[in-house]
């Protein structure tokens, strides 16, 4: 495999991995809140959390670009610290995390809903504080779904294109991912390179989706 193709494959996998780690805390938190709490505006939070799943990825990308661009609210706040997001690997991770989050939240939420409340109550009667109940009872019981959700989020991140090309661009060796690379190579007629990336992409996605499906369906 040419180093260029290998670099893109390794970078994409690494970025998707970091995106998955980044989306885990908010994803698990959100899933738990949605599974266990009733509050005003819950429907709105629920809808917002699944928005990246149903919106065109390019639209999500444009919104992110507006947010983190140097003229956007987040971009302006970060500028004094010399932090630039657009066109950096951080933008790749951001796009991937946002696009993968809804899949993680949905799957993890189903997991939390399946946890029998009685076990949690038992832990409480034994004197465990809420945080300890969560980390030693709820989380382990829902772990299979969380893992499946994380893997689904990871697969979504691996294939992310629309939002990535808008906020991160297609810079070889810096922000070019598998999906963006396939697009760029196809646009310039470099079919052999596009085919090589395609093969890598299919292999990675196949493996990850296979594991995710097994985790989600086997009890």
């Amino acid at each position, binding site marked *: 495999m040419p180093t260029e193709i290998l670099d893109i494959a390794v970078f994409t996998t*690494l*970025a998707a*991995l*970091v995106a998955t*780690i980044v989306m885990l805390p908010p994803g698990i938190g959100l899933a738990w809140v949605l599974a266990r709490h009733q509050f005003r505006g819950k429907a709105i939070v629920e809808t917002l959390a699944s928005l990246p799943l149903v919106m065109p990825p390019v639209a999500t990308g*444009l919104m992110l*670009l*507006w947010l983190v*661009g*140097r*003229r*956007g609210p987040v*971009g302006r706040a970060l500028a004094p610290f*010399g*932090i*630039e*997001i*657009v*066109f*950096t*690997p*951080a933008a*790749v*991770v951001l796009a991937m995390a946002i696009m993968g989050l809804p899949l993680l939240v949905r799957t993890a939420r189903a997991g939390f809903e399946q946890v029998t409340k009685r076990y949690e109550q038992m832990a409480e009667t034994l004197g465990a504080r809420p945080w300890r109940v969560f980390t030693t009872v709820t989380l382990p019981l829902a772990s299979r779904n969380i893992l499946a959700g994380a893997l689904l989020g990871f697969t979504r991140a691996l294939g992310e294109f629309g939002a990535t*090309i*808008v906020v991160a*661009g*297609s*810079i*070889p060796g*810096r*922000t070019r991912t598998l999906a963006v690379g396939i*697009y*760029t190579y*196809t*646009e*310039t*007629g*470099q*079919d052999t390179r596009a085919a090589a990336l395609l093969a890598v992409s299919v292999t990675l996605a196949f493996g990850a989706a296979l594991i995710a499906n097994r985790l989600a369906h086997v009890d």
Partner: protein
Amino acid sequence: MLRWWATFALVIATVVPLPAQRPEVLVSAAASLADVMGTIARIYEMRTGTRVVVNTGASNTLARQIAAGAMVDLFISADEAQMGTLRDEVVANTRVDLLSNQLAVVVPADRPRTLRSARELTDAAFRRIAIGDPAAVPAGVYAKAYLQQLGIWPAVSGKIVPTASVRLALAAVENGAADAAIVYRTDLDAAHRTSLALAIPLAEGPRIIYPAAVIRSGRNREGATRLLAWLRGTEAAGIFKGAGFIPLGQ
């Protein structure tokens, strides 16, 4: 636990943006230039020691990124309209017409045919004609303008298949989904199962311009100005010509 955190820190460190160590020039170039700009970047770095980083994409996407404040030093657009949307972002008096291109009609290689004029596209043998979406893709805008100029747009508009990019119009002919496509002459070198039916003469076809300009929000204005001057010089002209583009020079 410590080892886990160390791994995590390492992974984060690889993706967190760091300020550029040495001055480089960030160029946003239209997708059709991706290949040739890669060559340009390599040679320019060899000649001057300045690193050129090339970001490619559809011209309208690149324009949106610049409008959002992306720190691009130099922008090369595939059409004048997208450059025109950035009037406030461009450094005054730096915009130049860098390159030109030519339209071409291609047909499937297994049914080769030579046309004397694009007027023959009204022929019943051409049931589907692929062009880039005239609403968004520059190549499609040019193709539609040319068909209108010939006065055959009303006759062929029912046969037009708009595609999301000029490459997809070419692909439609390659895989037999369309009987003809109007693409750039430069797209042809990469095409395998297509055959050139007609190269639309430069004088007759629409004026296809790739404008370039230095962008105000860039970090390296001086570097961008120097690179732009080099792009208009003889060595770059040779590289562009080799890729099928028409350098417009000084």
